[in-house]
């Protein structure tokens, strides 16, 4: 029984990190209808920002997190202006943007690999290897802190979307781009800002990832399917759904890992992705199955 509680705790702790990794992806999809396959590679970029700050300056990844967020958000603005804005009127927008982000993922991976080689990296602040004990159950501090930070950021985002005027504009654009435009929302600007926020969240997630997982440039391929499974299960574009899916799937994966071995635990995400796409393509909270 203690074992099972332990696994539940570990699963939940990981879920917090996955939630932030998926949140930006979900936001970008919701507003821009871009399935951003480059998102995990940009998380990787954020992780490297944190890694070098830690390695060279000894700065805690938690402190560097806002910096990573801003750097990546700026990258997002740049990418939007250079690449995605011009695709807005493309006839096959969705296929086109998927392929573009796929290519972008390769560019980021190649650049990181060229610059920093494919060595496994991890930042190691004190809390990363420490744990709390509640009777026999241990809670790894790193993942707990990461989970708390991640959920705080997501809550802040949710409050912003719900209560600010601009947040409402973002949500309106998510729901119906044309109607929002008719009502006077500058959808292009909304697109730019939410793209920047989404990519910025990738940077924030990267800072957390840097001490939760070990990473190397090519690892983002593994994350793609993991994150896609969260976003698809949650319902593409629904941030709440993504967060819930992150917790559900990482707990399930933890149990699969416990009962069948660690190799099969990642398989949970891929199989879940497959099953959800086929059984309920709109996911848990998706409104319309327009992609199906």
């Amino acid at each position, binding site marked *: 029984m203690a074992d099972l509680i332990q696994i539940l705790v570990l699963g939940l702790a990981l879920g917090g990190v996955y939630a932030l990794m998926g949140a930006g992806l979900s936001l970008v999809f919701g507003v821009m209808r871009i*399935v951003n*396959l480059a998102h995990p590679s940009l998380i990787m970029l954020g992780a490297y920002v944190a890694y070098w700050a830690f390695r060279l300056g000894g700065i805690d990844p938690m402190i560097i997190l806002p910096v990573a967020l801003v750097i990546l958000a700026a990258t997002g603005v740049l990418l939007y202006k250079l*690449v995605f804005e*011009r*695709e807005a009127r*493309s006839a*096959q927008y*969705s*296929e*086109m943007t*998927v*392929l*573009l982000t*796929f*290519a*972008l*993922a*390769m*560019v*980021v*991976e*190649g*650049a990181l*690999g*060229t610059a920093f*080689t*494919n060595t496994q990296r991890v930042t190691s602040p004190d809390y990363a290897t420490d744990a709390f004990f509640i009777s026999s159950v241990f809670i790894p501090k790193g993942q707990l802190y990461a989970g708390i930070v991640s959920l705080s950021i997501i809550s802040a985002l949710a409050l912003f979307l719900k209560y600010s005027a601009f947040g409402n504009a973002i949500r309106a654009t998510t729901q119906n781009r044309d109607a929002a435009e008719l009502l006077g929302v500058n959808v292009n600007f909304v697109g730019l800002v939410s793209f920047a926020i989404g990519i910025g969240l990738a940077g924030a997630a990267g800072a957390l990832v840097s001490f939760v997982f070990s990473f190397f*440039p090519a690892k983002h*391929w*593994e994350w*793609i*399917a993991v994150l*896609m*499974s969260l976003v*698809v299960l949650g319902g593409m574009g629904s941030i709440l759904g993504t967060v819930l899916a992150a917790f559900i799937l990482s707990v399930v994966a933890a149990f699969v890992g416990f009962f069948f071995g660690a*190799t*099969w635990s*990642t*398989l949970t995400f*891929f*199989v879940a*992705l*497959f099953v959800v*796409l*086929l059984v309920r*393509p709109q996911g848990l909270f998706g409104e319309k199955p327009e*992609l*199906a």
Partner: protein
Amino acid sequence: MSDTETFDILEQRKAYNATLTQAADKTRATWFPVVVLLLLLAMPALQFVGNYNYLLHLLLFTLSYVVIASGWNILGGFAGYISLGHNVFFAVGGYFAGMMFARLGISTLILAPLAGLVAGLLGYLIGLITLRVRGPSFIISSLALVMIFRIFFENWEFVGGAAGVSLKANDLTVQWAKLPYYYGFLVMAAFTVWVSYRIKHSKFGLGLRAISKDEIKAESAGIDTRFYKVLAFAISAFFVGMAGAVWGEYLTYIRPNIFLTVLISVNMVLICILGGKGTIAGPVIGAILIVAFNEFFVATLGASEINILATGLIMMICLMFFPLGIVGTLAKHRKLPRFLDWD
């Protein structure tokens, strides 16, 4: 109107259509692919005058990509379903033929069609499931497929897990060792290109093009879209699997990381985009360019990471500025040289 009149009209229409096709055939430069094929058939004769193994390797490499990319094109180009996971069938073909070769000693050149059928059957079954979604969802599902198969092959002890299985090299001298595979790929490439031409000019191909334009309209026009696209998926898996079969024996080993890497799956997509999706000559031209380009980067820079960076950049530039590819863009401006118009 009597029946005879109707019959006459039909006859006249038939005759008229025949003259139209004849006129179209006159402008078609059928001689060009034939000459290229003959040249390629004669190429190994170079081995009599010197050591051209490297050139043969490059040609073989290009031919294998022609097979894979033309196969991908049937689903991705004609039907418009972009799969980023077609290397799964490359792996399945490679593993099937490779294991048969290792256990029973049957050459993969003989097994290739059978391996293709196995991959095609698997493609049919997977297609039945994944082709229920379209657009981005389909692309994502194809990515997940690669992940699933990779874990599967890496943990399947019978096929050697992550370490794979090494295969016996043939006992020809170095000078001639590549020839069987060279001719194998040449035959497959010619066959694939010919089949994709036949498909494009069939009712089936028309149906696939209709699906890529607007699936709902295609469906309401009476096309069995589900069957059409699943069949297209199976056919494209067949060709990719066939290429995989011989590829394993040529490299003398089968291992998950030679089949199931991103570069393989992205290369077949990139070749088609670069050359021109949905055209016959596109994948051939794309394959030549990509192989030349890969060699250039590996030879001059030597690093696979820079190769990935450059591949990604080229793909982005291509998508942003020439989404129709070389053949498509030239054709759109009516500047496509006649000898490249294979459609």
